[in-house]
Each structure stands twice: as C-alpha cells, then as structure tokens.
C-alpha cells in the first residue's frame, strides 16, 4: 500500500538501510528481521548492538545509528540537545525494574540501613529505587548504596550476601527466585504510576532524509509485535533457540507478559512528562531545562 512496499516488490537491490541501535538479544527486532517483516517494507535493518541508553544516544549522535530503542537515557539525551526525536515506543514501555531482596525480607522498610545495589549512576534502576524509597517514606541516605551493577554482577553480590537487595530487570529477579537466594520484593511499576521508560527514537537527519523508511520501520515493527503477542510460545521458543535465553526464567517472565503487550507504539505523554519531571528531580536532566514531551516526540510516523 505504501511506497516502500511497492519498491520492495520491484527488487531486493533497492532496500533502504536502517541501522537500529539496541541491546543484544532484543526480541521484537530480531524476530521481525527473521520473519522478513522489515524486508517487506523495503528495509534492510541492521542491528547496532550497544550496551546502554547512553551509548545508543551517542551512537545516534555519531551517525552510527539511524533509529534505536532504549530506556530513559533517550529522554536525557534528547533533553540535552542530541538531535533525535522519539517516534514510538516498544511493546512494554513502562517501568519494568524490580527490587529483589534476600528471601528473608518481608518488607521494604526492613532494608533500612542495609547495603543495597541500585545500579550505576544515571541508570533507570537508581531512579526506580529512589522512587520506591520515597513512596515508602525513606530518603536515599537511609540506605547504604553500593554499586554492583544490575545484571550478573548484581546477582552475584546478592547471592554472596554482599548486598541485601538489588534493583534489576524482572528476568534477573526471577532467576534469583528460581535459584532460591532472592525474592522480588517490589515492582517499580507499582510506584511510578503514569510513567514511560522506554522509547524508540530516530535521528533528526534520518527523519528528514528518509521519512518513508521511518514509517515503514514502525509498520513492520508493529506487525512483529502483533504477531509475537498472538504467539507467545513461538516468541519464547525463538528467544531460547535463537537468542539463547535461559529457558526456565524466560518462560516464567514472558509467558504472562507477552500477551499483555501494547502494540500501538503510542507514547504516553503524561507518563513521559512524569518521567521528565523525575529525571529533573534526580538531576539527570538539567533542572532548569524547559523541555517538554511535545518537543521531543513526533508520532506522525506510527501506522494508523
């Protein structure tokens, strides 16, 4: 129906290259490529593997990526003036961090004064912890912050008893529970209310030069997400075989989650404003910045 699809039918040679920055093992994008949904749109999507949001933004600024999907650093970057625009959202874009404690803890309050690892500065995990703490009536100084990162290192710290709680992704939380040395005590999503954490962005120059490719990308992306949502088992199988995810954990986390995915890719403006406010409070975004969600979001490329 659109130009991309027509040109795709004409021949392989005219595919538009799209470099998409995201972390390794991202499900929708890998799956979509494999299924050929992007190719249908005349796009040749190449994944630019990065380790975090800051790098994604840097890669975009360096002209190494055209599009990308990551967490809150995208907001920070856009607010700081990196020439990128948010064009959509991944299917699970809320705050997805969990607070995992040692199993003996019954209540968040019991962590007071204990060593906790909320992750590295600037990461969404720290924000998540602070928000939970605040909601529970504590200040950050009520805890002993140590930094063990958020992934395997954090898990090791928890297991070895070097920290009493960590903030991490749900996957790792579940892994800790399965191994028997951790327990998901709190979910950040419960405290953030309206909050958007993850975004898909495009560089301004790419939008200007190839708006059709942006449109095509989002169309294929939505198609992928819809397919995955309809076939969660296939999604999990794909993740396990192709992405080498740990099956038990992955299944436990995603069996329930994938069917709840939001497929529209729309931005929650109120949630985004809320996110900006929180980031300003944390100092990650310059508190004097006048940036609003409207300025950095452009939804016109989303499929109708």
């Amino acid at each position: 129906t659109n130009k991309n699809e027509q040109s795709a039918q004409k021949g392989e040679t005219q595919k538009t290259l799209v470099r998409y920055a995201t972390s390794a093992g991202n499900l929708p994008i890998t799956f979509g490529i494999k299924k050929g949904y992007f190719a249908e749109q005349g796009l040749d999507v190449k994944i630019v593997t990065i380790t975090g949001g800051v790098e994604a933004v840097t890669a975009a600024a360096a002209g190494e990526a055209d599009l990308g999907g990551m967490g809150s650093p995208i907001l920070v970057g856009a607010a700081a003036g990196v020439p990128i625009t948010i064009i959509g959202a991944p299917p699970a874009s809320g705050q997805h961090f969990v607070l995992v404690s040692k199993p003996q803890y019954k209540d968040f309050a019991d962590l007071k004064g204990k060593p906790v690892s909320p992750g590295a500065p600037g990461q969404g995990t720290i924000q998540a912890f602070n928000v939970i703490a605040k909601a529970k009536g504590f200040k950050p100084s009520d805890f002993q912050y140590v930094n063990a990162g958020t992934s395997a290192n954090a898990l090791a710290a928890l297991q070895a008893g070097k920290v009493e709680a960590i903030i991490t992704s749900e996957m790792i939380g579940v892994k800790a529970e399965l191994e028997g040395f951790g327990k998901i005590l709190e979910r950040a999503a419960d405290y953030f209310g309206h909050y958007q954490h993850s975004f898909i962005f495009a560089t301004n120059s790419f939008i200007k030069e190839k708006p059709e490719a942006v449109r095509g990308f989002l169309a294929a992306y939505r198609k992928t997400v819809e397919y995955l949502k309809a076939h969660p088992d296939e999604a999990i199988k794909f993740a396990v075989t192709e992405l080498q995810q740990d099956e038990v954990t992955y299944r436990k986390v995603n069996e329930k989650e994938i069917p709840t995915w939001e497929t529209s890719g729309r931005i929650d403006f109120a949630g985004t404003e809320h996110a900006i406010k929180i980031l300003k409070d944390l100092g990650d975004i310059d508190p004097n910045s006048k940036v609003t969600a409207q300025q950095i979001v452009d939804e016109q490329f989303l499929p109708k």
Partner: protein
Amino acid sequence: MRKVTVFPKSNEVKREKIASTLLGSSVILLFLISWELLFQFRLVNPLFISSPSRVVLALITIITDGSLLQNLIISGQEFVFGYGVAILIGFPIGIMLGWFKLIRAAFGPFIAAMQATPRIALMPLFIIWFGLGITSKIVIVLLSAIFPLIVNLQVAMSTIDNDLIHVARAYGASRWQVFRSIALPTSLPFLITGLRLAASRGLLGVIMAEVFGGAAGIGYMIQYAGSTFQTDKVFAGVLVVAFTGITLDFTLDRFGRYFDRWRGEVAVH
C-alpha cells in the same frame, strides 16, 4: 703421550626444554584439577563459576556449531590489526623518544598523559570518531597495547652500552646501522618484554572493546553469555583468551630467548 680428557656429548638442553614444558603444564593441570574438585564438591556456586569439565563441553558446543570460529575470526582481526599498528607506531615513537633528548623532552609528558587517560570516560568520543565497527575496536586495542612498547623501547635506548655505540660509529655505521646492529640487539629483552606486555594488554583490549560495544567476537560472546546466565560459555570464552595469551607469551618468550642465546646463563646459584 698424554691422555686428554674427553667428555661425552650432552643433551642437557633438550632435556631441560621438555622438563620445563612438562612442569608448566602440570602446574596448570593441577590448577584445573583443584578447580574441578572444588566444583564437584559444590564448594562454589555453579551459577557463577563453571568447572573445567563443563567448560570443555561448552567449548565442544561452540566449536561444533561454528560460533567460536566465527567470533575468533572477528576478534582475531581486531587483535592483529590493533597489535600490528601498535607495533608499527609504537616502535618508532619509543625509539625516537629514547634516542633524541629533545623529542623526549617535548612529547614525554604528553604521552604520559595519554597513557593515563581513562579510555572508558572517552567512549563517546571513540564512538563519534571511530564508529562502532572494527575501527573503534582496533583503536582500543592499539591504545591498550602501544604504551608498554613505547615506554620499554624508550628506556631500552638509554641503556645501550656506550662502548658498543663507539665501535659501531668507529666502523662508519650510519645512524640506521647503529640502530640495527647495536641498539636493536641490546634492547631485545626490553623489546620482547614490551611485546609480551602489549600482547596481553591487547587481548584484554579486544575483549573490553567488544564487551562495551560489540556485536560479534569473543568479548561479545562472553558478555552475552554472561547476561543470559550461560556461565560455562563465559568460561569457555575466557579460556580461549587465556590460552591465546599463553601461546603468544610463550612464542614471544622463546623468540626472545632465541635471539638472546648469546647471553650466558646468569650464574647466581
């Protein structure tokens, strides 16, 4: 007629070489065995620590599915280019710094500063200047490997025996000939040491570069396996790197010893 004492031919050298290889291997073997035992008796957590036997299984898997080779080729390229360029650039820089007082005075502090500049902090610059492809990785390997070369060569040049320089000059050696025939052989131990240090730093550089922003290579494999709890594979990757390290070190050491064979053994005993 006087009977002259004659000694039978000795094959001490060969025996020594075999013995030393055996000794080195057995220490490593001992280490592996203790590790395996620790693991078998559940004295370590298998979530974070693998065991030699499981690492071997993981190794077999990644060898048969071809992913090891594929990653090895990529990491290998990064290493070879980075290390090669480090040698190509580091050599002349080190020599010039060592040989010309003026150059040393001018650029010594600058190089010291560069050496102590934390690469991690400048990652964004790296991405902007060199992208996320192989170039940035080569640059990281280069920066990891080059300083031992520069510093070691620089110092080597200041330890050359003046008498020998005099000999060379007396026999009409050009500056290049002085370098080739005197400076190079004298500084060989320094040079090899620099190359050895550079090799291991370069290997670590490859891994670091790939962990931080790679989509392929052993470092990426390690990083990805780590984040998906494939501890055996992480250790398999580490093993591959460590083994490469031993091999390089051994080769360079032997190389150095070969060219240094004119030195009698140091007789401290």
